[in-house]
């Protein structure tokens, strides 16, 4: 199932994994990825959007 994340860009994957799999806070992730929290939120929003197809398997 990890291969499903191939649909994301490398930046989106990293943001997604850190946020949702690792459970890190926006502030922690933004610091380590050298981003503003606003840009990070946008990136994670796009990752979630790209993964909505995967979601149907868990409906």
């Amino acid at each position, binding site marked *: 199932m990890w291969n499903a994340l191939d649909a994301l860009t*490398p930046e989106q994957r*990293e943001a997604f*994994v850190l946020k949702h*799999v690792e459970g890190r806070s926006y502030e922690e992730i933004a610091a380590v990825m050298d981003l503003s929290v606003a840009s990070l939120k946008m990136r994670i929003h796009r990752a*979630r959007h790209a993964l909505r197809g995967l*979601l149907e398997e*868990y409906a």
Partner: protein
Amino acid sequence: MTDDLDRYLDGEVGADGLSASTRAHAEAWNRMVESFRTTAPSAVAPAWLEQKVMADIVALPRRGALARALEWLMNPTPVRVSPLTTALVAAAFTGVLLLPPGRTEVALPAPAAVAGVEPVVYVQFVLEAPGARSVSLAGDFSDWEASVTLADQNEDGLWAARVPVRPGVYSYMFLVDGTEWQTDPRAERYQDDGFGNRNAVLAVAASQ
């Protein structure tokens, strides 16, 4: 992906504040994320996991499931292969068999073929199960088919099998008498299987 769902995923609103359809999405999302958390990326994880993501997880204080998985992927883990096995494997690879004195031929036991065409490391699996009628082995290396049969050669309750496994990190369990799943009490690592049991985890390093 609705804004409501985004707000829920960011913890800004609770599930109660969602419409029925958004709540269904939220629940599906939670199940999906949970399966990411319980499926440790093994050696077959995509290459990108080992790169920037892992570097950044390492940079953060150790906490999550991935960080723990990474910790064992990066730390050297002893592989349970006897020196004799290593010698036999080395002999098999070089085409040279070291024959014991007084013997003219040595029949190498045919290893159960679970790892496809490239068996590189032989791992000895042992389970102490006195009174068992059969013991087999299943793991993610065999798609959880109990395809490897252990033998109690000395009839002393010690069941063993030598299995060719490609380098990687694997979960496995023993199946006793065809019905009873047993966790290897001598495994070096364990992992929750998401159904209330613990799988044993085997890390196989590439042979030198």
